[in-house]
């Protein structure tokens, strides 16, 4: 027992304390973070689109489990025989927490996957990509709403300014639906939000689950964002997600979206168990066949295809009118060149490869929406991906991809989760919900 040990005599404690202090003094004292490299200065200098002829190894740090990065690396190696891509994988959570430290170390990789810009760019850990974007002409091949997701101003505002990363394939969130169940209920693919709500009610009357929705990880935020996009100019959603000064979610559109989400939950359209159901649990329920809709991203497309081939469809949540522009929620796998990269030019050539038709086919085959040349890829037979391509094309044409609200601040995902779980059971009002989101946003952006 701890307390049965006698208290150490004062002198011994003194020695202990002295040793401790000496060591602390030797190791780390003073202002934290003072040793961060460069401190906001990012390297710039002459760039080249010429590739070396000698054997070169490109190190790439990533956390992708879909196989996309791996397949892209293979494709790139095939085109450039003297270049080897050395992939270094780290699993999810620990990747994000250790990334900044790795990038700041002496052994920074040549390319690193980013999940969000966060502080990484501000801390001077990345190399600006604008010179490469200009040299390779990425602005002509990649839709602006997709490239702009990885721009940031010096003030921290996202969506414009310096380009810090390049996309390697996009995610897209929208409505999965069971085409067989829809047909048997006499429901056609809705073209307006009213029709969508009518379909929800019809499914409920028939005893089916209208909207299978996980919320243990806060996925109700997708519903909220998809609705918000429909109640206002999607550009406003994008601004809020990017933290543009002065933008707010405590607006008519935001409140209306939260009210609609709460009403859907209260009406029983969303299962009562949603707060205790995780993403894979909801997919498992959906493929059982008695759920009409599920709001989900393309990361589950392959699973759904395997379980219900040819009977699953996809569309982005329809707007208030049939001719409303197509809006989607999504972002990209993105790769950045660390400031300390050894071969930045080769790394940029890899990023350029991501915009080619060959890369588009690889990205799509692994479940991601292609960066460019979407018109040149083909969906496999009986796959939900055929619908995905149609929806992606419409979104790209209306330049309507809005980045996830979840990434608008480092804590927004936690706030959306906690608040969303309370909203669907009526523990907070729609007004309190949007105010809590805005409070988080204000803390980070003002």
């Amino acid at each position, binding site marked *: 027992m701890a307390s049965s040990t006698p208290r150490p005599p004062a002198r011994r404690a003194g020695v202990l304390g002295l040793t401790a202090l000496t060591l*602390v003094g030797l*190791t780390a004292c003073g202002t934290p973070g003072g040793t961060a490299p460069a401190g906001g200065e990012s390297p710039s200098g002459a760039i080249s689109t010429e590739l070396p002829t000698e054997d070169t190894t490109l190190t790439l740090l990533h956390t992708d489990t879909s196989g996309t990065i791996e397949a892209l690396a293979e494709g790139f190696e095939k085109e450039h025989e003297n270049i080897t891509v050395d992939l270094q994988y780290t699993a999810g959570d620990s990747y994000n927490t250790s990334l900044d430290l790795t990038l700041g170390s002496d052994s920074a990789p040549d390319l690193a996957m980013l999940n969000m810009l966060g502080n990484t760019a501000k801390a001077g850990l990345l190399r600006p990509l604008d010179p490469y974007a200009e040299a390779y002409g990425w602005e002509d091949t990649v839709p602006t709403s997709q490239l702009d997701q990885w721009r940031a101003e010096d003030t921290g505002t996202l969506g414009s300014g310096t380009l810090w990363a390049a996309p390697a394939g996009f995610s897209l969130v929208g409505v999965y639906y069971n085409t067989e169940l829809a047909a048997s209920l006499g429901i056609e693919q809705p073209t307006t939000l009213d029709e969508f709500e009518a379909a929800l009610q019809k499914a409920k009357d028939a005893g089916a689950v209208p909207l299978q929705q996980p919320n243990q990880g806060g996925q109700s935020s997708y519903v909220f964002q998809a609705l918000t996009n429909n109640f206002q100019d999607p550009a406003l959603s994008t601004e809020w997600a990017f933290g543009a000064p002065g933008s707010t979610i405590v607006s008519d559109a935001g409140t209306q979206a939260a009210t609609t989400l709460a009403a859907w939950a209260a009406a029983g359209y969303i299962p009562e*168990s949603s707060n205790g159901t995780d993403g894979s649990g909801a997919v498992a329920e959906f493929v059982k066949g008695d759920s009409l809709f599920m709001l989900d991203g393309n990361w589950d497309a392959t699973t759904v295809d395997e379980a219900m081939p040819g009977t699953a469809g996809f569309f982005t949540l329809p707007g208030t009118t049939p001719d409303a522009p197509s809006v989607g929620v999504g972002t990209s796998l993105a790769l950045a060149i660390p400031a300390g990269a050894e071969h930045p030019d080769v790394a940029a050539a890899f990023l350029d490869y991501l915009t080619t038709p060959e890369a588009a086919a690889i990205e799509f085959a692994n479940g991601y929406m292609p960066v460019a040349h979407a018109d040149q890829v083909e969906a496999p037979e009986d796959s939900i991906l055929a619908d995905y391509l149609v929806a992606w094309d419409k979104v790209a044409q209306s330049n309507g991809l809005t980045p996830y609200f979840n990434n608008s601040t480092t804590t927004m995902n936690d706030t959306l989760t906690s608040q969303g779980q309370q909203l669907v059971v009526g523990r907070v009002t729609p007004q309190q919900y949007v105010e809590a989101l805005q409070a988080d946003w204000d803390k980070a952006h003002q």
Partner: protein
Amino acid sequence: MTLSSPARTEQATGPAATPSGVRRPGGRRRPRRAATVRGRRRRVAYLYLLPALLLYVVFEVVPWVRTVELSFYEWDGVTPGTWAGLANYREVLSDPRLTGSLLHALGFVGFYTVLPIAAGLVLSAVVGRHRRTGSSGLARTILFLPQVVPLVAVGVTWRWMYAEDGTINQLLRAVGLGGVTRAWLGDFTWAYVAVGFVGSWVMLGLCLVVFLSGIQKIDPALYEAARIDGAGAVREFTAVTLPGLRPEIGVAVTVTVIAALASFDVVYVTTGGGPGDATMVPGVLIYRLAFTAGQVGTACALAVVLSLIIALVVLAIGRLTKEPS
């Protein structure tokens, strides 16, 4: 983690101090002429202490001191930080989310400490009796199991069991209680209790290990004497087993209370603090604040407050369970 360091302090210095002669009963000063001899012996003693002390200082004291230091800064973990004074501590003590998490941790003491110790005492008495009358190695192995399985695996398994279609609900439906089924971890009323029970289950294994080994040390003659005096199983438990297990109960209370207050793994894996903030504990918040939110200073302040609370509670437990000399 630096959280448990206060409890470990004395463990590390205690045993090593014994051979040096520092720990002696009475504690009265020796005559002056022995002082030089004692001084030399003491220096030699420190030499013996050095390797352990060095490791301890580098891996326990330095991180802890650094944690305290960081708690006075506003720092995102990457860019240079700024001095924040006591602002982080003010936030810890005033933000309802942070104070709420501390209350949740205190509430877990009921699940992590009271329940498993009560159940562990009864079970170990039963298993202990069987050991004396005839062996039951299998039963013991099964009862130890919770302590053997890694906590993350425990969390994942219970998460499935608590799900809408999980084992718990299947059992409830099988006995005609289909009406009370729910996704337990998503229910604002029940999620806290559900997570608490996972803690009880895990700690039960630990309590059993400790109590069973304690029972083995109790003189069998005492049980024999009790039986000759006509004591039944219950009387035997209260008169022999319970007093004999006093030190073990002290250990179990200390360890389980620390586990309750510093809980992280089970909560993080099962609910992540949700639904809402219904199961949020300081352990999860510290991790989130430091690694996702980039509020390292606040995280450190919360860690310091938490470790102070733990140190105080452990100190109090030590006083209460101290053997009367």
